[in-house]
C-alpha cells in the first residue's frame, strides 16, 4: 500500500472565524486551560476579530492555524530524542509525551509561530474533570504538545474533530497522495496556498484562497 499524506484544507473563502473548530479541538482533546492547539487568527487589526484600516476602508480575514503536519518538518529534525516524529504510514507529525524531555527545541525550530504549546505547569481544567474522547493521551506537565490530527479518531476511521463541526463547511480532510480524494481534487481545482512556503517545510495543510 502506498503511504498516505493525510492533511487538511481550510477554505478561507468560506471561513467566518467563528472559532467552532478551535473550541471543538479544545474539548475533544481535553486541552488544559490556556492551551489551544487550533486557533483562529485575524488578519487585520490588533485584536482578535477586529478589522484593519480606517472606516470605510476596512478589511478583515480569518486564518485558522494549527500544526501544519509538514512533509519536511523542522521540529522532527531537531528533537534530540525523537519524541516528535513523522508517522511513516500517514505522514502525520506526532508527539510522544512520555518521551519528551522538555527542551523546547521543536518549539524554537517550528516556523509556524504558536502552534506548539508547552505545559508550563501541572495541567489545569476549567471544570475540574477530564473532557473529550477517552482515548486521548493524558496531558503532562513540562512537555510539548500540539495538534495530533486527532490520532485517536483516525485510528477508528473517523475524521479529525475540527472538520465535522465547521458550520461553514470550510474544512476538508483527506489523503493528498490519493489523486481521487476530495482534498486532492480541491487543490487541483481551486487557487490555494501553504503557509510560509519560503521555509521549505511543505505543509500538509492547504488554504483555499
Amino acid at each position, binding site marked *: 500500500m502506498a503511504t498516505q499524506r493525510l492533511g487538511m484544507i481550510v477554505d478561507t473563502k468560506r471561513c467566518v472565524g467563528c472559532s467552532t473548530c478551535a473550541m471543538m479541538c479544545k474539548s475533544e482533546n481535553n486541552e488544559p486551560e*490556556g492551551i489551544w492547539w487550533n486557533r483562529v487568527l485575524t488578519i487585520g*487589526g490588533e485584536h*482578535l476579530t477586529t478589522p484593519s484600516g480606517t472606516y470605510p476602508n476596512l478589511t478583515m480575514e480569518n486564518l485558522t492555524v494549527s500544526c501544519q503536519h509538514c512533509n519536511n518538518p523542522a521540529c522532527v529534525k*531537531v528533537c*534530540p*530524542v525523537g519524541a516528535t516524529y513523522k508517522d511513516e504510514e500517514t505522514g502525520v507529525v506526532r508527539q510522544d509525551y512520555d518521551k519528551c524531555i522538555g527542551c523546547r527545541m521543536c518549539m524554537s*525550530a517550528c516556523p509556524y509561530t504558536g502552534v506548539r504549546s508547552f505545559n*508550563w505547569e501541572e495541567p489545569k481544567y476549567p471544570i475540574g474533570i477530564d473532557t473529550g474522547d477517552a482515548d486521548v493521551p493524558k496531558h503532562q506537565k*513540562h512537555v510539548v504538545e500540539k495538534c495530533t490530527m486527532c490520532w485517536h479518531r483516525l485510528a477508528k476511521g473517523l475524521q479529525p474533530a475540527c472538520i465535522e463541526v465547521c458550520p461553514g463547511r470550510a474544512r476538508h480532510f483527506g489523503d493528498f497522495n490519493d489523486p481521487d480524494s476530495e482534498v486532492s481534487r480541491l487543490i487541483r481545482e481551486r487557487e490555494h496556498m501553504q503557509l510560509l512556503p519560503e521555509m521549505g517545510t511543505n505543509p500538509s495543510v492547504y488554504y483555499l484562497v
Partner: protein
Amino acid sequence: MSETTQAAQAAKAPAAKFGGKGLNVGIVVAAIVTIAGLVLWGVQLSGGFVQTGMRNLDSWGLYITMFMFLVGLSAGGLIISSVPRAFGMKGFGGISKIAVWTSICCTVLAIGFVVVDLGQPLRLWELFAYSNLGSPLMWDIIVLAVYLILSIVYLWATLRFEGGKGSEKALRVISVIALVTAVLVHSVTAWIFGLQQAHELWHTALLAPWFVSSALVCGVALVLVVIIALRRAGYMELAQENVVKMVKMLGAFVCIDLYFFACDLLTSAFPGGSGTGVVNMLVAGPLAPFFWVEVIGCAITAVIAFVPKLRTNPLIVVGSLLAIVGIFCKRVQLLVGGFQIPNIDYAGVMTPYTVTDATGSLTNAYRGMVYWPQPIEFSIVLGVFGLGALLLLLGFKYLSLRPTEKSH
C-alpha cells in the same frame, strides 16, 4: 628575567600568602549559594516553569542565554593553553593549568544551564537511549561531553608531565585534539540556533565562525581577569609581558568579532527587505541597549588593548570586563532577538502561556522585549554560578595549578 627563574620564585614565595582562611570562607559561601540554587531548582520543577518568564512564543530564556555565554567563556582557557603547546610556541608564562581549570569550570556550568532549562530532567537518560543523531542539540551534547572529558585529560596529562611522568609528545597530541574540539564546540552550539530557518536573526552561515570569535573574546578576557586577580592575591607571579601579549590577542579577537557583526548587519540590511527589520530591532528597537553596550564596550576594549599607554593593570581588567559584558549582551540579543520577530503575528487568542506579558495584545507584547526573566531565573543562575565558584576555588585549593618550570 627568564621564565625558569620566574617560575621558581613563583613556587616559593607566594604560596604562603594565598589561601588560608579567605579561601575556605569563599568555598563555604560558594557551597551555600550552590545548595540554595539546588533548592530553587526543586521549586521550579515542582511549581512549574510558569514561574519563569518563558512562554510559548519565547520558549527559551536566561538559561539558554547563559548556556551560550558559558560555552563561549570556556573557550579562552583551553585555547590559550593549547595553542602554544600544539604549535610548539612560547606560552604565556605558565598559566596554562589555571586557564584549563577555568575552562573546565565553565563547561560544567554550561551543561548545568542546559539541565536547569529542561522540563523533564529525569528523562535525561533518553538522550543516550533514543539519540536522534540528526539533531544539532544531540551533536552539542556529544561534543560538549567530549570537550569536558578532553579538558580534564589535558589538565591531568599536564600535571603528570610536570611531575616528571608522561611524554611531551603525548601532551602535544592531546592539546591538538583539545583545540579542534574547542572549535567544534562553539560551532555546534551556534548550529543549535543557526540551522533553524524559523528565525531570521539566527539563520546565517556566519553564526558558527562568529561564535568562535565571540568565544575567543570573552574566554581570553576571563583568563586575563582571573590571572591578574590571582597575581594580586599572591597565588602566583607572572611577568607583565605575558599579560600584555594576551591583551593584544584580546584586542585582535574583539576586532574580528565586531567585523563579523558589521558584515552580518550589512548583509541583512542592504537588500532592504525583511532583514531591515532585524537590523532596526538591534540598532534602535527593544534590544538597542544590549547592542550599544556590546559595540561600545568592545570598541573601548580594543582601544585599551592597542594603545600601549593604556595597558595598565586596572584598565586591562576594565577592558576585559567590558569585553565579557559585551559578549553577554550579544548572547541576549541573539536569544531574545530570535523570538522578537514572529513569523506569524496575526492577532489570536492570548492566554497566560502565550508570551511573558500576555496582558495586552500581541503587538503590545512585542513592543518591548518579548522576554524578560523572572526572579526565580536570576536566583537559579546565581546558584549555578555558585557551583562554578565552588569548583574554581576547590581547584585552587587542592590542585597544583601554580606555574612550574615545565609549565607553558
